[in-house]
């Protein structure tokens, strides 16, 4: 029943109850003092969020006085509503989704960027590879029709005539490519190609981010209200993330093992997780993060995002990004 109450009232009641409990029983300071924070992930549990699991397991958030619960996403679990309503303090989104939500009136800011490079890729069989956007001409591409703007943006950025590519509507699975119904797929670098490799299908991927498609992905979003009023918690959460992802970079295999151990009920397979963990490193860590730290972004990367988002029909300004919390977290 408490869940049903308005968030602000709920947090008031729970902090009130906690204070009452501490006062009447004279509890020593410790685990009970940690602030309860919900962190909404963008998809089902997998090593995609490996750094966060390390932060949880290694107590990096406890050190910041936070008790973080990681809520997984899913096909029917959108990220933006719980963040807007305050049920979750931070959500994992992507610059294009965030821009769409802001256009619908959500008061979001992007406060850190986990994936410097967008994970969208064109996957093809190595016998008939797509290595550059020009190779797409005359090919059949399997993709969800809702992703057409993504392909249009790639074509516009690389002077390719989209009318010379045949779009075949498919669901998100590798079968049409493997069975030869299409020549290539629009998918994430870190899922379908990984699944194909594990199944022994020789494949080639072309990362769209290497051809001008600049859309920050796995971005941390928070509301303007939280940024103003819950700043310490946000900075603490980011500090935990930074520490967790630095450990992740040091040993991706350990992150995969931890993920499989932490979620025995998720049906995860270790070899797939290990490969996925390796594959996402170049997306998340770059010269920029080596110089400035995990999650970093600059005026230049933001400007490139604003440009690509405009091609996707999302008109945003650089004020969608707010680096101040990340600066505090790295300070």
């Amino acid at each position, binding site marked *: 029943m408490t869940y049903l109450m308005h968030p602000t009232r709920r947090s008031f009641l729970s902090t009130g109850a906690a204070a009452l409990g501490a006062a009447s029983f004279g509890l020593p300071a410790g685990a009970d003092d940690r602030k309860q924070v919900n962190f909404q992930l963008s998809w089902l549990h997998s090593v995609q969020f490996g750094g966060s699991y390390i932060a949880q397991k290694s107590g990096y958030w406890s050190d910041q006085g936070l008790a973080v619960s990681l809520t997984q996403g899913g096909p*029917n679990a959108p990220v933006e509503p719980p963040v807007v*309503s305050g049920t979750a303090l931070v959500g994992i989104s992507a610059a294009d989704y965030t821009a*769409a939500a802001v256009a619908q009136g959500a008061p979001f800011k992007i406060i850190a960027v986990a994936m410097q490079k967008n994970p969208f890729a064109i996957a093809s069989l190595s016998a008939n590879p797509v290595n550059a956007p020009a190779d797409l001409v005359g090919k059949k591409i399997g993709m969800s029709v809702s992703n057409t703007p993504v392909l249009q943006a790639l074509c516009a950025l690389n002077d390719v005539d989209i009318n010379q590519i045949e779009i075949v509507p498919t*669901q998100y699975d590798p079968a049409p490519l493997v069975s030869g119904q299409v020549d290539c797929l629009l998918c994430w670098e870190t899922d379908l190609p990984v699944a194909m490799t594990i199944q022994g299908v020789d494949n080639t991927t072309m990362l769209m981010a290497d051809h001008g498609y600049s859309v920050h992905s796995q971005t941390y979003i928070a509301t303007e209200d939280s940024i103003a009023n819950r700043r310490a918690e946000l900075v603490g959460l980011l500090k935990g993330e930074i520490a967790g992802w630095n450990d992740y970079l040091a040993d991706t295999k350990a992150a995969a093992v931890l993920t499989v151990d932490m979620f025995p009920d998720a049906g995860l397979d270790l070899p797939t997780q290990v490969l996925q963990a390796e594959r996402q490193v170049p997306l998340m860590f770059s010269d920029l993060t080596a110089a400035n730290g995990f999650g970093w972004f600059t005026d230049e990367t933001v400007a490139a995002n604003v440009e690509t988002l405009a091609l996707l029909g999302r008109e945003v300004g650089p004020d969608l990004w707010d680096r101040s919390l990340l600066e505090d977290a790295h300070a």
Partner: protein
Amino acid sequence: MQIWAGFMTALVAISLWGGAAHVFSESVLVASPSGVWAFVSSNSGLLVRATLTTAQNAALGFVWGNIAAVIMAGLVTMQPRAERVVSASALVIFCLPLVATGPILRVISGPGSAPQIALAGLAVYYTTYLALLVGLRAMPRSWSDLMSVYGRGSFMTLITVRARASLPYLFAGLQIAAPAAFLGAMIGEFTGAERGLGVLTLRAMRGLDVDATWSLALISATVAVLAYALVGRIGERLVGYAPVIILSPPKPPTRRNIWPGIAEMVAAALFLLLLWQVAMDVFQLNRFFAKRPGDVVRYLAADADARLTLWVALKETMAATIPGFLSGLLLGAGLAVAVILFPKATRVVLPVAVALRSIPIITTAPLIVLALGRGATGTITVVAVMIFFPTFVACLQGLRQAPQQIIDVFHTYGAGPVRVLGAAQIPAMMPALFASAKMAVPAAILAVTTTEWLATGKGIGVLMALTSTTSNYNMLWSCIVAITLVAVVMYAAVLWAERMVLAIYASEQLT
């Protein structure tokens, strides 16, 4: 004998399956029995934990949903005037697409298992309500007269007489509710649950893991069938017999004047709009995603592109729903007729049909679509399959209700089985067919939106699912309104057709 028949059926099914897997071994559709066995044995711990989680949420939803149904039915029995409004509201809420209600429940409840339980409850309350409503009235007039003579009011009558008279009906409703609760809990797990069969199904489908998909389909079907059988057995023990009932809302008395009926319809619509607005205001749901009736009206009035998008998607959805709905009904009735003509087939077909109607749609839909392609055929087949089994069972019961004396008269005159069928048995089946058609409306909509969302990527189902990337919640709510209106129109069309047909074949049903 029945066990023997069941065993033989299972044996035949497994050998057919093995043969099919052999024939289609090149394709990625059919898992072989050995592949399924390998998956189940190497993941047994995981599967047991997932099954227990889903079963627990389903059981809790089953309890809550049925409590709600009992309260509503009791209320309506004591206050018959409220019936139209309560029944219409119950139908509309039952028709709400689970694809849309899931995320909203998740946001209201936060992490935990509340959405799974709520969706399981939502999946069961309507059928129990209908069964109970029939049951609470299945009481001889003389009993209620006796109660009035003793000066007892409607509440005491409800508790002491009606409640007991309704028990067999309650159990018939609960039996249908058991597999439905399981399906509801699985769909609820799509809203970000940590564990359960629904979560595993999702991963298996995304990874195109055929062995896993088939294993999960088999496990969930087995659990659903067991739940169905268990509730049936408990009911038999407690009540002693299972009544042959046809689930259909009891018919209100016909009136010459149509105005009171229209007034009640308007009252039901206003009540629902008020419920929508007030529920959101009470929970203080954020307007970003929790749109109010006024928001939807303003959005659709202002945005011509949105109206067009909605219309195109709705047409796509209806192009699969209507043919699937009609062919499911025709096939169900057709097979029932065939079984009557060849009575020996019954012993094999009936247990299989009862088992198959309990299989959760979300595990079968992707398999059917994989087999038949992502075009209209796949979706139409899923809808037809979803409707086919309950229709078949109900129609078979209807065919058998043809009075024996009438059939004897035909036999005396030397009429053949086809003649008896056309002149006596099929007219007796008509009420059962229309009752199934009414229950099939929400089932068809559930099937079509779920399939579009999970498998084909077309129509209203996918338009609703796209909201998670576009945050266009105005469109999501417009879809909900549109799909609900479609359900109401389809329901009204069935009512209309029923009056037309029954006026010819079974005029006594129209009193």
